[in-house]
């Protein structure tokens, strides 16, 4: 949040009215920004009241109290989606961050600056491709048919004797999902750690060398502690976004793997736009409200943790 905790040394030379007048042009400049935020963020918040109604667009919403939530909590599908959301988001967060830290440490140790730059350019690349492209690429690469590179390779090496349907079977979908996420985003995840690493005073390394510390000891006692604050920051910031998982799961899922791939956002999507019958917007709003509240609680916990750990809130 804004820095409200700082001691306020306000020297009010002029009355409020004069100061407001002084800034009148700035208020005017803020109008477009405010208009966008109100229309696209705050008006939908008013729509949360539909969560307590039955709302089928053609008719006016009818108040039903907490019925939507009762229906929701009684559905096993809903709990599966909730569990999958947490599993996939937190799993990929820990996996991506862990590998990104190791990658950064190794990148940092690279002998040639040119090679380092080249490696960085390459590992950042997949982050900027869309999820549709990533899904398309891996759909072909992991295909069980003769066009799928990985299956053909494993068959030829004799590691498997029957092609695996990596994205089409419940057993392998989750691990495939994690691998694709690592491919796409881990490289980009190193950016923030590389910045933290280049800020470490080289004098400390020199002093350690003189004291006889080897590469491993330097990494263990200097580099990693220096990174720990950044690692925590990254984890906390991303934990706040855990509930929003949508696109990556949506483009990689298919009917055969829904028990593993259905997350809350995709559940809302299918219930509203692809349910076959007349969608009840009230019900899907209720699912969304539940999701938002869990998300907000996570943010507040993270904000509290953030204040404890690094002395200031998230934003």
């Amino acid at each position: 949040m804004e820095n409200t905790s700082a001691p306020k040394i306000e020297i009010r030379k002029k009355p409020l009215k004069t100061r407001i007048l002084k800034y009148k042009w700035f208020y005017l400049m803020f109008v477009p920004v405010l208009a966008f935020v109100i229309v696209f963020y705050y008006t939908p918040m008013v729509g949360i009241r539909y969560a307590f109604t039955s709302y089928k667009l053609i008719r006016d919403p009818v108040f039903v109290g907490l019925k939507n939530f009762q229906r929701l909590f009684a559905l096993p599908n809903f709990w599966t989606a909730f569990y999958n959301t947490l599993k996939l988001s937190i799993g990929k967060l820990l996996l991506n961050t862990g590998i990104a830290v190791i990658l950064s440490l190794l990148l940092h140790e690279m002998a040639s600056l040119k090679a380092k730059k080249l490696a960085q350019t390459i590992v950042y690349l997949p982050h900027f491709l869309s999820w549709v492209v990533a899904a398309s690429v891996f759909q072909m690469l992991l295909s069980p048919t003769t066009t799928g590179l990985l299956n053909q390779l494993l068959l030829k090496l004799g590691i498997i004797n029957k092609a695996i349907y990596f994205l089409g079977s419940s057993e392998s979908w989750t691990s495939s999902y994690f691998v694709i996420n690592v491919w796409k985003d881990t490289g980009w995840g190193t950016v923030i750690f590389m910045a933290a690493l280049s800020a470490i005073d080289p004098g400390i390394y020199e002093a350690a060398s003189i004291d006889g510390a080897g590469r491993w000891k330097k990494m263990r006692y200097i580099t990693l502690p220096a990174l720990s604050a950044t690692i925590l920051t990254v984890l906390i910031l991303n934990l706040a976004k855990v509930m929003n998982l949508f696109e990556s799961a949506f483009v990689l899922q298919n009917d055969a793997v829904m028990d593993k791939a259905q997350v809350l956002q995709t559940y809302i999507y299918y219930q509203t736009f692809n349910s076959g019958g007349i969608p009840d917007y009230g019900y899907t709003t209720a699912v969304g409200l539940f999701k938002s509240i869990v998300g907000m609680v996570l943010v507040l916990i993270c904000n509290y943790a953030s204040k404890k750990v690094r002395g200031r809130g998230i934003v």
Partner: protein
Amino acid sequence: MKNNFEAANPANQRHAGKKIGVFHIINGLFFLVFCFLILLPLWKVLVDSFDLTTGYGMKLFPEKFGIAGYTSVFTNKSLYIPLINSVITTVSGTMIGLLLSTLGAYVLIQEDMPGRNMLAFVLLFTMIFNGGMIPTYIVLRKLGLTNTLWSVILLPAINVYNLVLMRNFFEGIPKSLFESATLDGCTPMQTFIRIVLPLSKAALASIGLLFAVAYWNDYTNYKLYITKETLYNFQMKLRSIMMGSDLPQANNGAVENTVQNAAVIVAIIPFMILYPILQRYFVTGINMGAVKE
């Protein structure tokens, strides 16, 4: 920004005088393999897009080279409109996005402005809590924006995260410049256009790129708000090609897979060409967020 920083930082120069040991060789080999694994999936798509045989399997070079996959893609008129839609939304969305981000950021750095903290809170609160997918859909529908390109242009244009990045950058501009501009008789708008924007070219470039990539890659907003096929962007089109429901007619000996691979390459090639030149701006952008640390 990062490049200068790195060059100036002795931490990176310490490698220079060091002799290259076994560790460095293993480390180098590791990155060789890692980069190979990152590029392999994309290389495979490129190879297969030029291969006219049916079962490519393990080949890392085309067996029967031909460009029929690409002629199938480019002679297919149903792909022109999605490409045009992608360009329209990317260009106009990026402009509006930059306008809102710079205006908002400029107002938020006015320290003495009454109500500044409240305005900042109004923006930041949206990062914590939002109405959710369905209420947002209902609002856009009631405004008559669904099934128009306005929905996919205007909604992503307000991006609080990018606005905060921009504010962090603006905070680095010396306050004295604003004061002297005011003394010279500049109105706030004139200061904004003549002082702030010209000094922020790097920030405009990197945040503009963040917007452009997001617009070009957008799929979720189209999926939610657009059902009319004539308004699809290239990502939507690519998706339906991959799902097999909308495959362009394969011709000149191209098989289905070749066409799909060619379509993926067409979707990423503009970016792949620009990427090596633009890469440093992306890194600048993310480091701007870290400036406040």
